[in-house]
């Protein structure tokens, strides 16, 4: 039994939900960024799976989208981690529950 598209979509949905779990329930700022990167990777896997299983023309559209998505995710990770370092320098902690200076 060869894997159909459903297998790949289920794995990518599981990866997305594990990333969502990491982003929602961890209290360390860097782990929230890890969760976001995991969700982006799951979406990339989805793109490639749909490109592979629906290939009717030799156009590499799915591959192009994923290449640009990887570049943008890397840029976003760099800026996010720079923000974490800047915030750590000010608050001396990385627990997001303590970033509450703007709380009403």
């Amino acid at each position, binding site marked *: 039994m060869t894997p159909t598209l459903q297998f790949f979509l289920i794995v990518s*949905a599981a990866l997305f939900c594990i990333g969502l779990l990491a982003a929602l329930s961890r209290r360390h700022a860097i782990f929230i960024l890890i969760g976001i990167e995991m969700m982006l990777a799951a979406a990339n896997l989805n793109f490639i799976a749909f490109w592979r299983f629906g290939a009717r023309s*030799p156009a590499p559209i799915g591959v192009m989208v994923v290449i*640009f998505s990887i570049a943008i995710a890397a840029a976003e*990770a760099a800026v996010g981690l720079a923000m974490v370092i800047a915030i750590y320098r000010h608050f001396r902690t990385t627990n997001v529950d303590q970033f509450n200076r703007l709380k009403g």
Partner: protein
Amino acid sequence: MNTVAFAIIAIFTLTFALAAATNPRLMHAALSFAAMFVGIAGFFFLLGAEFVGLVQIFVYVGAVAVLIVFTILLTRRETQPHHGFKWGGVIVAGAVFAGLLWAIIKTSAVSIAAPLVKALTVKQIGEVLMTQYVWPLLCVGVLLTAALIGALVLVMEDRSER
């Protein structure tokens, strides 16, 4: 497409993803995160997109994961207290997964087998990148430059305004 290879790569990837999401020790979780991306690159190889798989290993494992390890090392104190873990996130993630699973199983159009296609060469990707996708390529170049300069400005210490 081989079922055994799919099963091995799927178990590898999901195990390390779960370890990265739930391990309370920071460094172990960051390295599991890097191993998970190797697993996803394995999926890309299985699906016939070898170039993207290698780009994934270069960029994610080689740059993003190392960046995260460096940031963990820069923002740790000697007596790091154990950060909490909110259990409400498990319920939300479980609900989202149940919804996605239901949608995938209900759709009959996605239980198709893989069609036999010609292999995608790097030459084809290069041609398409330089002709059809040249505008997105230049925009991503500008975006990466802006992101790097922005990250440097954020991290730079302000010595002139002391």
